[in-house]
């Protein structure tokens, strides 16, 4: 029983990370119909930038996290303007560009920081919280809290601000949105900025807990992808439910099978959803789906 | 003799909106038929259901006595149901001639696989003549080798119609063929359709908003309103009908 509880909390924590990645991916897909395979390296960049900011700029971890988010937002805008805007309709080339960006980013990280993983020491990872017999780091709960806070902030933004409304309008009907005067370029930039900031937040939060390495974004990318497929490709609630679900399913499954096969569980879930209910839990069934 | 086309009590809803609500009509003889009605009357949805792009929620559709409403698009196409699209679809990268030749190609998978290894081009040669004749009738002959994507809008419409004719369908559905066409080209189109009808004696059903065009072309008009067939009859009667006028104005 306690083992189960332990895995559920672990799962919620990893799920929170997946939610941060998935939210970004679902925003980009919902608004721009782009599957951003390079999202994992944005996550990774968040981890490294946070490390740099803590060690070389400000000793404060929270401040570094905020700076990381801002920097990633700027990087996201640059990516949108420089690369992805022109590839909106060309899916194979989106993939090529994403792969190119992955190669550049992962190898760039190796050049700048070396191939071995970095360890970032922050107080919240060393303080423990005891729940009954179990103990978790404070970071576990910070991560979950950060995800919840991000979700709330995003909802507020989308529903209570004009920019948020513009984003929603563009995702539902780009032509109509343009007709009523919404600047779609601005919306796209904003989407990438928010999505990248969320990914960077994820990397900055996970980095201290595990390790910061060039490949640290690869699996979160695939898990985030699974989450948005599970939740429904254009659905924000879907990304949230999907992210937590994947995290918890993954963690709980380690009680029954070896960690070698843990990744297979996630892929099996992905394949199963796509075959049985491709529009996911909250997606809309569109003419053309089985 | 079974009716050529029998549509009986056909309905279709999209998330609560009843696009087609128990539409019924019969077509007993070859002819040019017009399908008109105010926006939202369900005309294109009805077309979609006849050719298989949508499945009807209720009702039946029979082609020469055979029920086709559960068949898929390509199966109905092979039975002789052809259509053009409101948004005008052609294979952009292929030349005009290749567009037509492809439309005429026997598309059974087995036949195609055999053709891969038995490379006789005989059938293609035979069709080329007919293809070029048809393209000539609408002044597209000079553009035979040009990619379809480079054609003007009106030219693409004509190409699309020729492609749907080349496989000698029994039933041809044209979805707003006259929209966006200038008056000169409209005459070419009208003459072409009359000529094709004279040669082939098929059933031509045309959805149109251009009243002058459709009234001068069709021998029989069907009027749809709110998902049903409101009235049908010869053009003169329809144009004088009170109910039809009310439907458009109301």
């Amino acid at each position: 029983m306690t083992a189960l509880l332990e895995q559920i909390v672990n799962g919620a924590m990893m799920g929170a990370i997946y939610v941060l990645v998935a939210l970004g991916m679902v925003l980009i897909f919902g608004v721009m119909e782009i599957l951003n395979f390079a999202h994992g390296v944005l996550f990774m960049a968040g981890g490294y930038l946070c490390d740099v900011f803590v060690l070389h700029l400000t000793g404060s971890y929270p401040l570094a996290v905020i700076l990381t988010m801002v920097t990633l937002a700027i990087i996201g805008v640059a990516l949108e303007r420089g690369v992805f805007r022109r590839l909106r309709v060309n899916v194979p080339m989106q993939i090529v560009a994403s792969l190119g960006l992955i190669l550049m980013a992962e190898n760039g990280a190796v050049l700048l920081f070396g191939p071995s993983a970095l360890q970032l020491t922050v107080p919240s990872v060393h303080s423990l919280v005891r729940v009954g017999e179990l103990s978790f780091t404070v970071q576990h709960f910070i991560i979950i809290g950060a995800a919840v806070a991000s979700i709330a902030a995003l909802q507020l933004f989308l529903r209570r601000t004009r920019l948020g409304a513009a984003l929603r309008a563009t995702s539902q009907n780009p032509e109509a949105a343009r007709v009523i005067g919404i600047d779609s370029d601005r919306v796209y930039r904003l989407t990438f900025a928010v999505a990248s900031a969320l990914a960077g937040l994820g990397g900055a939060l996970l980095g201290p807990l595990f390790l910061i390495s060039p490949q640290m974004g690869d699996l979160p990318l695939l898990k985030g992808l699974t989450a948005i497929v599970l939740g429904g490709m254009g659905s924000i609630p879907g990304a949230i439910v999907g992210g937590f679900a994947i995290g918890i399913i993954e963690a709980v499954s380690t009680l029954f099978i070896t960690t070698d096969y843990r990744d297979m569980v996630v892929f099996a879930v992905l394949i199963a959803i796509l075959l049985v209910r491709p529009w996911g839990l909250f997606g809309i069934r569109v003419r053309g789906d089985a | 003799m079974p009716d050529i086309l029998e549509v009986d009590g056909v309905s279709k809803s999209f998330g609560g909106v009843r696009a087609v609500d128990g539409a019924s009509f019969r077509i007993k003889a070859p002819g040019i038929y017009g399908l008109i009605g105010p926006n939202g009357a369900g005309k294109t949805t009805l077309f979609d259901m006849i050719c298989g792009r949508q499945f009807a929620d209720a009702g039946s559709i029979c082609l020469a006595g055979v029920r086709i409403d559960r068949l898929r698009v390509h199966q109905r196409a092979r039975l002789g149901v052809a259509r053009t699209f409101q948004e005008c679809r052609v294979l952009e990268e292929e030349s005009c001639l290749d567009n037509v030749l492809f439309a005429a190609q026997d598309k059974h998978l087995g036949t195609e696989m055999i053709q891969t290894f038995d490379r006789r081009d005989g059938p293609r040669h035979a069709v080329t003549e007919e293809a070029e004749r048809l393209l000539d009738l609408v002044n597209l002959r000079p553009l035979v080798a040009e990619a379809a994507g480079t054609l003007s809008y009106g030219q693409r419409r004509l190409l699309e119609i020729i492609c749907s004719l080349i496989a000698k369908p029994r039933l041809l559905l044209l979805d707003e063929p006259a929209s966006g066409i200038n008056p000169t080209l409209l005459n070419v189109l009208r003459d072409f359709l009359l000529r094709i009808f004279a040669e082939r004696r098929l059933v031509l059903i045309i959805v149109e908003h251009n009243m002058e065009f459709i009234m001068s072309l069709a021998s029989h008009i069907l009027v749809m309103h709110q998902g049903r067939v409101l009235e049908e009859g010869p053009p003169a009667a329809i144009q004088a009908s009170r109910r039809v006028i009310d439907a458009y104005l109301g």
Partner: protein
Amino acid sequence: MRVRAGTARLAIGALFAAALYLVPVAFAGSPYVLFTLTLTLCYAIPAMGLNLLLGYTGLVSLGHMGFAGVGAYVTALLMKHGLASFVPSILAGTLAAGLVGVLTGVPCLRLRSHYFIIVTLAVGMMLFLLFNNLDWLTGGAAGLPGVPRPRPLDLGFAVVDPRRPAGFYLLAATAFLLVFVIQYALVHSDFGRSLAAIRQDETLAASRGVDVFAHKLTIFAVSAAIAGLGGGVQVLFLRAAAPQSFGFLEDVNVVLIVIVGGSGSLFGPCLGALLFVALPEALRVADAFRMVLFGAALVALALFAPRGLWGLAATVARKLRADRSVVARAGHS
């Protein structure tokens, strides 16, 4: 006019084949070149298979090397345990891969483009994880070493010994040409025209009588089988089967080979394979700096050469021809 074009193509084809077979003679003194070219052929085969799917039919498969792995492991197991000789082993590998392709395709091809891409990624990953974890069958992470080369073949006028580099090259070249001819025949046929129609406009293709699903399934199976053949040849060449050869990085690699080389053209994948193998740094343990440059090149390619390198070359050639004719006409005015 028509006959002459066909004969010209046949002549070019024959020259190409002859050049291919003369390579061992030309490079007799450079075993490294022979090795690189043989490896190129091993990569070109699955790439040509993927090209049929991606370039001609418009289906992006991100897990294609999984099928190559199926072919590789089946061939390797049969050869290693002496259960079959070379040709039946390779054939079995090809058919097994094709079968897995059918099993994958039936449920997955109904999905729309984005979903299809994701599910092929997942299937490829699953296959890799199976290769990597089913120790009792596949040898797990260590793979299957000690796969024997085929025995020498007596052709009458010569003996081809695949245990030697030149001999195996000829075997690989023959497999390559076989696949090339199949690719050519499929593309230039009614079937190929239906595939092209599906790529350009599925709805239109269906309304003209094309059974879109059946066509997609057929080409998916053929494409998987070809990948399986490539996997079998590769495993015999390297004398070992290893799961890393069929993992995510390799899935990515083969997609890049096809797209960068020029999808939708017959020679594109060959050019891509040559590029990606003849730059060996780009494949294996690579200098990080060169990889950054390579990544930048890919992004540049995506932005400025949407039809791949072969397409770029074709565009440039067309422009040069157009310029020349303009000049010629100007000269006549």
